[in-house]
């Protein structure tokens, strides 16, 4: 057994087994291809080229390029060229908005941040909010109206056609007219929809989302008679049970919930919650769990019933009067096979804490299970305390799965002659058994509004380009109903139209501009148009007081009590020859809508660390049983449908289940997304979109997967001596131990004081440093994309990622600990530590990486000659080399995404995290400029305030896990964190004096295991 296998943390099963593949990643700076330059032929060619370029060196750059200055003819008041401006807007995803603040530089949006004034952002974002920017400048976005028969057309031609067509339709009241819209919370769209239905009373309006939360909604309808939306206060709960609910990532309130969740887990605070997660696929929330139970997806409803049964029968919980109808089910549950899987510790953690626990359930559970979760919260006394309800908007809307079926039925019977599709992508993501593409071909006139000319648009008779959110006027509600205003940062680059504009056009109504429509909706509730209120709302991004009021519904069991008993009769595990395939959203592509976004394609999945692909995720024990290894291609069959997927072995997946991410395998996504990964929608048939029984067969072929999980692995091998000094990269403490004795909880080893080779430098001014709280980091990856956007980091593609050449300046290392079948997970963001004794600087032959007076380890691109010695000598493996000129063939549109404050690097130079030096300089110069011209004529700038400089990663973080500031100020946030008992420096024993400190993760396992 190698020394590693004895240690507790590991990144991959390869590392745990210490396989040759893993050794290669550790021992070779760039595996697999690192020696290509040493091939004799290429070496000679290299020398020839060198000779030629020496001779030509003097001939280039004879003249500076002539550069124009193009000032405004009339400069807007208050506008300062070159000073960034910030505008509030919002991004809606599947019917819930998150408020954003977008930075505009000379009229060009260059960065997206969360809106600190919006309750569902609080300044944080997720990766796709950050990546919205790249989509704006995506050259593959559709740029003009397309008429299927005649090709590209003008908007006016479409208007001409639409006017005639819809005038004719209004004569018949809209017979044969149908609309298929993606889910939206926009009050203006709801208003236009009402007008549309008034104008075309015969028309049918359908809404569809492939990853719908309708089971949650229908569960509430069962429980309360009407659909209600559940809101939870995660910061006030002592015990949180998430039943297959990924509230840290795939939830409309994820950004806020992540913040609340972390707020309830302050190791120095009075309460520290314990998170229990019961799920099938290892989710981001599952990776944050203190205790996790992996079960097949079909067993989760039974688990909820068994839990309530155990609470009532064994923990003395009193079933509230309205829930007596559940007695037979609870009785039956006692003999259910899952009953034994309900951990006694979980029951203890939940019982007897009225209002201090919370149970959440995810959209893959059945409506009955959701009704039961309401019963659980009621029994536990949580309703009105940690759980509150608001009414769902549009309560009579049929579930998405039903709506698409109704539409398909009508299309199949030729009842739809005109179909308007607003967004979505039903040809790709509608249930596969509907054959939506074929049905669409039977519709005489189909009009599609979409960002890309994708699978669906190509089957429609008209395609209208949709304006990007950063080009649009609009409005949307957040998870709690607060209206957020969407304002454009730039005129539509490709004459795109918004949903509102298209609907108004089809209605033939004035006003037809989205701005006027939104103003009309805004004024509607107010009596008279209120200019000041409008500007205040526009500035804040949110309309104050527009949230839905709390509701207090009454719980009844009439509609579903019986069904719970029936549901218990269903098998709780897949049969002997079958496997349970569990559909899930792709970590960053969600349902596939972001497939053409290179930033999101290259952002590694937080758990598998896969880029550019999805896979059939298997548990180690299942893979062993089937003798499958990572990269083996398997055929998965469900009835007549079959797909091929490469295998990925991930600890934590429930045995005999297959986790499969939707959203990949697009055929018409664009140049980036087409052909990346495999289309799992092909297996999603029928109404139930959660899981399916499938057969699995090996094909004998293999497929290269680009996973970054072993990239930049930090070499902790070596002598036994060093192993004994416990080079632990990630540390965690048990809550009990921490509370008992914080000073010794971390088991610090007493290293021999290092001998200084150089006289340490003084940093009398600011001493910039960073602190990363591993207890707050959820591993969502927003920081990675935020850094990419801020620092002009290129996308390199799957082939280069597979060679370990991804360029991200910040990466998130994901470590497993413990049993591979029931692992615990730690996420560790890692970026340049700006070591005071930087090893990279000591080996650079040309002083291309040096320290500045504040201790920043700066990279001087113009000096760098690309020896890569620095990367070789970096213990943290955070330096990135430009193997190619990644910016060479970019169009004028693509280069608009760049942050003008950061140099775009060319081929042959190293780069790495700068601590966002451009933001430091911007704040510093402005602080110095704010002069106090006192009586003696002294010109003194003010001091830089703590928290004034925020690097891009820290700003994007939903949980504020990253702190940045002046280490010379012990009162600063970062200074306090560096002084915490939880703080430790990674690889401190090398005496590199890193400026980044980590705060150890705190586990609250409790129970018997926790005591061990």
């Amino acid at each position, binding site marked *: 057994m190698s020394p590693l296998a004895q240690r507790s943390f590991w990144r991959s099963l390869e590392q745990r087994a210490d396989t040759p593949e893993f050794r290669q990643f550790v021992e070779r700076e760039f595996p697999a291809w690192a020696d290509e330059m040493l091939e004799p032929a290429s070496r000679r060619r290299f020398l020839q080229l060198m000779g030629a370029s020496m001779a030509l060196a003097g001939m280039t750059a004879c003249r500076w390029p002539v*550069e124009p200055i193009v000032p405004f003819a*009339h400069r807007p008041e208050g506008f300062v060229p070159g000073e960034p401006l910030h505008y509030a807007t919002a991004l809606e995803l599947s019917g819930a908005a998150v408020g954003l603040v977008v930075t505009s530089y000379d009229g060009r949006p260059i960065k997206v941040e969360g809106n600190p004034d919006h309750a569902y952002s609080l300044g944080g974002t997720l990766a796709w909010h950050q990546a919205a920017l790249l989509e704006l400048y995506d050259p593959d976005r559709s740029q003009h109206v397309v008429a299927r028969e005649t090709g590209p057309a003008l908007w006016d031609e479409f208007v001409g056609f639409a006017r005639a067509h819809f005038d004719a339709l209004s004569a018949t009241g809209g017979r044969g007219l149908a609309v298929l819209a993606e889910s939206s919370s926009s009050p203006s769209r709801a208003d236009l929809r009402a007008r549309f239905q008034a104008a075309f009373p015969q028309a049918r309006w359908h809404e569809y989302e492939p990853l719908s939360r309708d089971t949650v909604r229908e569960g509430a309808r069962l429980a309360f008679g009407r659909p209600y939306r559940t809101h939870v206060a995660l910061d006030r709960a002592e015990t949180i049970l998430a039943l297959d609910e990924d509230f840290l990532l795939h939830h409309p309130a994820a950004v806020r919930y992540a913040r609340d969740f972390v707020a309830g887990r302050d190791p120095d605070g009075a309460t520290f919650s314990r998170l229990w997660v019961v799920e099938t696929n290892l989710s981001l929330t599952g990776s944050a769990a203190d205790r996790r139970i992996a079960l097949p997806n079909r067993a989760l409803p039974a688990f909820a019933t068994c839990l309530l049964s155990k609470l009532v029968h064994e923990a003395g919980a009193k079933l509230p009067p309205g829930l007596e109808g559940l007695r037979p089910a609870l009785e039956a549950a006692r003999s259910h096979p899952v009953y034994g899987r309900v951990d006694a510790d979980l029951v203890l953690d939940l019982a007897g804490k009225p209002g201090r626990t919370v149970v959440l359930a995810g959209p893959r559970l059945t409506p009955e299970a959701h009704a039961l979760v309401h019963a659980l919260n009621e029994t536990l006394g949580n309703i009105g305390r940690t759980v509150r309800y608001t009414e769902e908007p549009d309560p009579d809307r049929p579930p998405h799965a039903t709506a698409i079926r109704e539409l398909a039925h009508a299309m199949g019977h030729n009842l739809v002659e005109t179909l308007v599709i607003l967004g979505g992508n039903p040809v790709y993501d509608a249930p596969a058994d509907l054959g939506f593409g074929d049905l669409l071909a039977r519709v005489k006139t189909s009009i599609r509004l979409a960002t890309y000319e994708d699978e669906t648009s190509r089957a429609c008779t008209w395609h209208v380009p949709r304006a990007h959110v950063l080009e649009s006027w609009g409005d949307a509600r957040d998870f709690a109903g607060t209206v957020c205003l969407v304002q454009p940062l730039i005129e539509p680059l490709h004459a795109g139209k918004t949903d509102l504009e298209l609907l108004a056009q089809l209605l033939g109504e004035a006003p037809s501009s989205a701005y006027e429509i939104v103003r009309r909706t805004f004024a509607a509730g107010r009596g008279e148009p209120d200019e000041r209120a409008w500007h205040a709302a526009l500035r804040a991004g949110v309309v104050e007081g527009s949230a839905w009021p709390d509701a207090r519904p009454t719980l009844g069991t009439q509609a579903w009590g019986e069904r719970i008993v029936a549901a218990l009769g269903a098998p709780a595990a897949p049969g002997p020859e079958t496997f349970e395939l569990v559909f899930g959203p792709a970590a960053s592509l969600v349902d596939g809508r972001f497939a053409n976004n290179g930033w999101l394609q290259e952002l590694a999945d937080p758990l598998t660390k896969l880029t550019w692909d999805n896979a059939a995720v298997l548990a180690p024990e299942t893979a062993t049983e089937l003798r499958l290894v990572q990269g083996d291609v398997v055929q998965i069959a469900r009835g007549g449908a079959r797909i091929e997927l490469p295998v990925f072995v991930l600890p934590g997946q429930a045995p005999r289940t297959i986790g499969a991410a939707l959203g990949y395998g697009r055929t018409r996504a664009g140049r980036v997304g087409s052909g990346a990964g495999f289309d799992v929608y092909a297996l999603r048939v029928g109404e139930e979109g959660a899981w399916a029984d499938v057969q699995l067969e090996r094909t004998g072929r293999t497929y290269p997967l680009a996973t970054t999980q072993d990239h930049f692995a930090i070499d902790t091998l070596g002598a036994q001596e060093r192993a004994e000094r416990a080079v632990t990269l990630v540390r965690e403490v048990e809550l009990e131990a921490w509370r008992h004795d914080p000073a010794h909880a971390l088991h610090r080893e007493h290293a021999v004081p290092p001998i200084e080779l150089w006289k340490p430098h003084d940093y009398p001014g600011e001493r910039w440093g960073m602190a990363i709280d591993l207890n707050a980091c959820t591993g969502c990856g927003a920081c990675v994309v935020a850094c990419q956007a801020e620092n002009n980091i290129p996308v390199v593609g799957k082939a280069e990622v597979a060679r370990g050449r991804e360029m991200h300046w910040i990466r998130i290392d994901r470590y497993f600990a413990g049993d591979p079948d029931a692992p615990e997970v730690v996420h560790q963001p890692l970026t340049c530590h700006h070591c005071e004794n930087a090893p990279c600087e000591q080996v650079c032959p040309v002083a291309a990486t040096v320290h500045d007076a504040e201790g920043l380890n700066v990279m001087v691109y113009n000096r760098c000659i690309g020896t890569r010695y620095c990367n070789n000598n970096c213990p943290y493996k955070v330096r990135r080399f430009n193997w190619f000129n990644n910016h060479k063939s970019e169009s004028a549109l693509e280069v608009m995404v760049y942050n003008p404050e950061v140099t775009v690097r060319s081929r042959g130079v190293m780069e790495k995290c700068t601590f966002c030096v451009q933001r430091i300089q911007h704040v510093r110069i402005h602080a110095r400029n704010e002069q106090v011209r006192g009586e003696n004529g*002294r010109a003194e700038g003010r001091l830089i305030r703590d928290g004034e400089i925020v690097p891009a990663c820290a700003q994007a973080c939903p949980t504020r896990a990253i702190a940045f500031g002046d280490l010379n100020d012990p009162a600063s946030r970062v200074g306090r964190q560096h002084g915490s008992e939880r703080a430790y420096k990674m690889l401190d024993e090398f005496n590199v004096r890193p400026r980044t400190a980590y705060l150890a993760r705190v586990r609250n396992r409790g129970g018997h295991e926790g005591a061990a």
Partner: protein
Amino acid sequence: MARFAMQVHGKRPLIFPKWVDALRPVVGGVAAIAPVYAIALLYYGGSPRTTDVGYMPEQPVPYSHEVHAGNLGIDCRYCHSTVEQTAHAAVPPTQTCMNCHAGIYPESPKLVPIRESFSTGMPVRWIRVHDLPDYVYFDHSAHVTRGVGCVECHDRVDKMETVYQAQPLSMGWCLDCHRNPDTHLRPLDQVTNMAWAPPGDRAELGARLREQYGIAPSEDCSTCHR
């Protein structure tokens, strides 16, 4: 590991092909020229032709700084109004020109592009004279609010009929001042005064101002390069 596939002739491995032998007489000549070439390259690299000193492009409008800033005595900041707030000393919008020229020389043929721009809203395309490389992030506000006069980098613009680049604007030139700022500082209220002369010893005054304004110019790479 790499394997070097070399031809072996006798005992000596052949690294270069045979035809290289024909080049042997030339080697001496190349060796003789090499130092001359190197010196010429260095000379050329540092010459004004490379640093662009004296660059005086023709502007779309024959705007005279000599008339406006010199004879008329208009303060630099009337047009370059953002110089104290931000990195760019913005070239003024057409509107600024028309503030005066709506009444003064309203018919002048030289001002046709200005009047056109003002009426159509299309900008005038001026030519940048002082052009730093894109990896240099110079900030005007950081200099003019610390007592560095406009004239230090731009010379006597008030005496230029057409503006040209008077200083090399090379990194060495920047660092000369960052290392010895004393002789380039002036009282804050004299920053835009092109004709200001120090009332005594410049270095002595500069040292006092440096202390008074708390000026400590940075020589770090990160100050200008990001």
